[in-house]
């Protein structure tokens, strides 16, 4: 019995039902209160993990294999922390953002944003606390449907098209994952992750499960070349939703991938499979950055940047599958760097998308050339975007720097030096499109330019700024966060000499 853990599952879902049912004028305020409670309970779980180590809870009181075991280790704690920070600031931003959505279709979007968002938040908690393969499937469906509901909020033709494509990919990915769950259950007779880690052997069936589950999860994570659904969905949604999708949702399926490759499939993965994923990551960095450099619209640029940044998460796999050194020192380093990248990208990207929402409000459009003169009009927002850019590029002392430095070091140490080309090259490409993004904001306004009509709320600017600052701060306080991440030894090796 763990009160914080139970509460962190119940509070966001109960809040979602509450805001679904209460009158319109209370919804936003109740969401803010529920967000505070939810984030507080998540921090409570994190604190218990820091104090007592891995926290366990048996759903139904039965225990595996009959029941479903819930657990929070360091990896769960880091993800809960990330969700709490992003979630809280996002709720604050949305509180002001949706004020202008007050008639007809837009009022419907605002009314249902709150319950969809809290359902998504609860689903993220369920994900990070789950210790059961089938339960993870149910959670994937929850996250997928909540995310699609958020994408299609405004109901325009554009978002419906993007949402439909997203739905198809999400379904295909879930089915592929479920097929693997069935295979593993048929072979080992349990769905409990902990038991499976101990039971799994290298045999054709486990390998087949590994392939179908990995492919399904990569589709949901939008890893090149399975990323095609992401830019339209992330760019056409409202600004707070884009932030949620890029910062949190795609990281959910990646989290499961991490758990599986370091658990059930640890003995099954082959160097070839790792290489393939590494190559996909390299392709993502090149293709996503190239596309980002070509975009004329701010949100499409940021969405393609997400495609590129997700590529960095893939270099972990060739290092893990390569197993070139004893003790797993470089594997561990790569895993730390990769999770750090998840974290810093979540903060930076959420900040960028929220800033894009402010730019669209102020400039009335998200075309890059309409941003002329914004540096004068919205100095704080433009500063925020630059700060988020620092973390995405991987400049010290940001979180992105720690992530990329750890990944680069692991890549070199494990003897697979060629990936460094993409790690460093990706940073340069990021600098390129970040410069393009900000360039027009610093240009003088010209006579023909339309007026900058909109006013933005300072609270929204501060929320975006806080996220960007957090993205830099986690670089300065990295040691503490890395220590939390390692509680319960989630990656299965001790790290040898490092």
């Amino acid at each position, binding site marked *: *019995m763990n*009160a914080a*853990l*139970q*509460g962190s*599952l*119940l509070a966001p*879902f*109960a809040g979602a*039902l509450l805001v*679904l*049912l209460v009158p319109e004028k209370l919804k936003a305020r109740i969401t803010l209160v529920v967000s505070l409670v939810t984030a507080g309970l998540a921090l409570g779980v994190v604190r218990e993990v820091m104090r007592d180590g891995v926290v366990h*809870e*048996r*759903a*139904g*009181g*039965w225990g595996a*294999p*009959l*029941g*479903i075991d*819930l657990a929070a280790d360091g990896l769960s704690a880091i993800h809960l922390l990330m969700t709490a920070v992003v979630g809280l600031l996002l709720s604050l931003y949305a509180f002001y953002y949706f004020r202008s959505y007050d008639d007809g279709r837009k009022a*419907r*979007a605002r*009314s*249902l944003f709150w*319950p*969809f968002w809290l*359902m998504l938040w*609860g*689903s993220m908690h*369920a994900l990070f606390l789950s210790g059961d393969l*089938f*339960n993870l499937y*149910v*959670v994937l*469906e*929850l996250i997928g*449907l*909540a995310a*699609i*509901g958020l994408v*299609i*909020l405004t*109901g325009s033709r554009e978002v419906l098209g993007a949402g439909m494509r997203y739905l198809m990919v999400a379904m295909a990915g879930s089915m592929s994952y479920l*097929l693997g769950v069935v*295979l593993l*259950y*048929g*072979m080992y*007779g*349990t769905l409990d992750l902990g038991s499976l880690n101990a039971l799994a052997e290298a*045999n*054709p*069936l486990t*390998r*087949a*499960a590994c392939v*179908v589950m990995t492919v399904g999860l990569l589709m949901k994570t939008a890893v090149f070349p399975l990323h095609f659904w992401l830019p339209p969905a992330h760019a056409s949604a409202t600004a707070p939703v884009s932030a949620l999708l890029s910062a949190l949702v795609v990281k959910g399926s990646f989290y499961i991938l991490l758990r599986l490759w370091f658990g059930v499939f640890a003995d099954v993965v082959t160097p070839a499979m790792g290489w393939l994923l590494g190559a996909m990551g390299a392709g993502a960095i090149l293709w996503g950055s190239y596309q980002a450099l070509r975009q004329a619209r701010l949100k499409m640029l940021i969405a393609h940047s997400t495609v590129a940044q997700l590529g960095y998460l893939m270099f972990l796999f060739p290092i893990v599958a390569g197993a070139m050194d004893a003790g797993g020192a470089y594997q561990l380093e790569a895993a730390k760097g990769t999770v750090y990248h998840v974290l810093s990208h979540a903060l930076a990207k959420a900040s960028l998308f929220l800033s894009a929402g402010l730019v669209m409000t102020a400039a009335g459009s998200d075309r890059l050339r309409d941003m002329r003169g914004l540096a004068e009009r919205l100095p704080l927002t433009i500063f925020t975007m630059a700060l988020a850019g620092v973390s995405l590029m991987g400049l010290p002392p940001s979180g992105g720097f720690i992530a990329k430095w750890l990944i680069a070091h692991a890549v070199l140490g494990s003897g697979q030096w060629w990936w460094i080309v993409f790690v460093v090259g990706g940073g340069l490409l990021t600098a390129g499109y970040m410069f393009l993004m900000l360039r027009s904001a610093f240009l003088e306004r010209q006579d023909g330019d339309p007026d900058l009509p909109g006013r933005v709320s300072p609270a929204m600017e501060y929320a975006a700024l806080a996220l960007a600052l957090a993205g830099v701060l986690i670089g300065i306080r990295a040691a503490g966060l890395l220590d939390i991440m390692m509680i319960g030894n989630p990656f299965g090796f001790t790290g040898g000499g490092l």
Partner: protein
Amino acid sequence: MKGAGKAIRVYGLCAVVLLAIWLVRAVLAMPVEPGGLTGVVDAAMPQSGVKHPVTAVLLNFRGYDTWLELGVLLLAAMGVLLFQPRNDLTAVRPLPPFDPVLTRAAVILFPFAVLVSGYLLWVGKYAPGGAFQAGVVLGSVVILLWLTGIRLPAPLIGRWFAPLLAVGFASFMAVAAVLGFIGREFLAYPPEQAGNLILLIESCATLSIAATMAALIVGLRTQAQHAEESPHG
């Protein structure tokens, strides 16, 4: 273009066949006598509060999954509500009655369907049945009434509709909150109360499943109508 489409179909077919062969090979490697969890389930049945293993797994042993699955249903229904002007179905225009015999038949069928639904809900304790079957029967008859042009009771598709959608998901949560409050693990029913709690949750879930089904069919049907009508203003 046509050639390209054909090539994609041929390659696609080859890929699917190869994938199927590969998966069949993998499945053939599966143990012939699966251990599974049948034995474990049988051993725990006396504490489950019900006598049918499927109900025990769905509502007790893996009740946590079922709770979240009801959340999935709620999200689907919320997706439908997004295209209604309010969180209900009051904007849905009833179909014009077109066949008096069918309308009459639906009216006669209605009480029996409710009875069957209640029976299915109750029998889940002992035999195949339970909330999902009961909810589908109930939802179907509501849809049948609507299709034959009968106006559904205003409070049911109005003020009470959103609470009906939510009550299944909420009932699990209320039980979990109370159990947590008295210091039990998450959704861990006391064995002596398990049967009653399961019946409570299943009754609520039946209502939500029926309402969700009605929302998915009736609520989206109006969308199609609006789309057809929109060119004429």
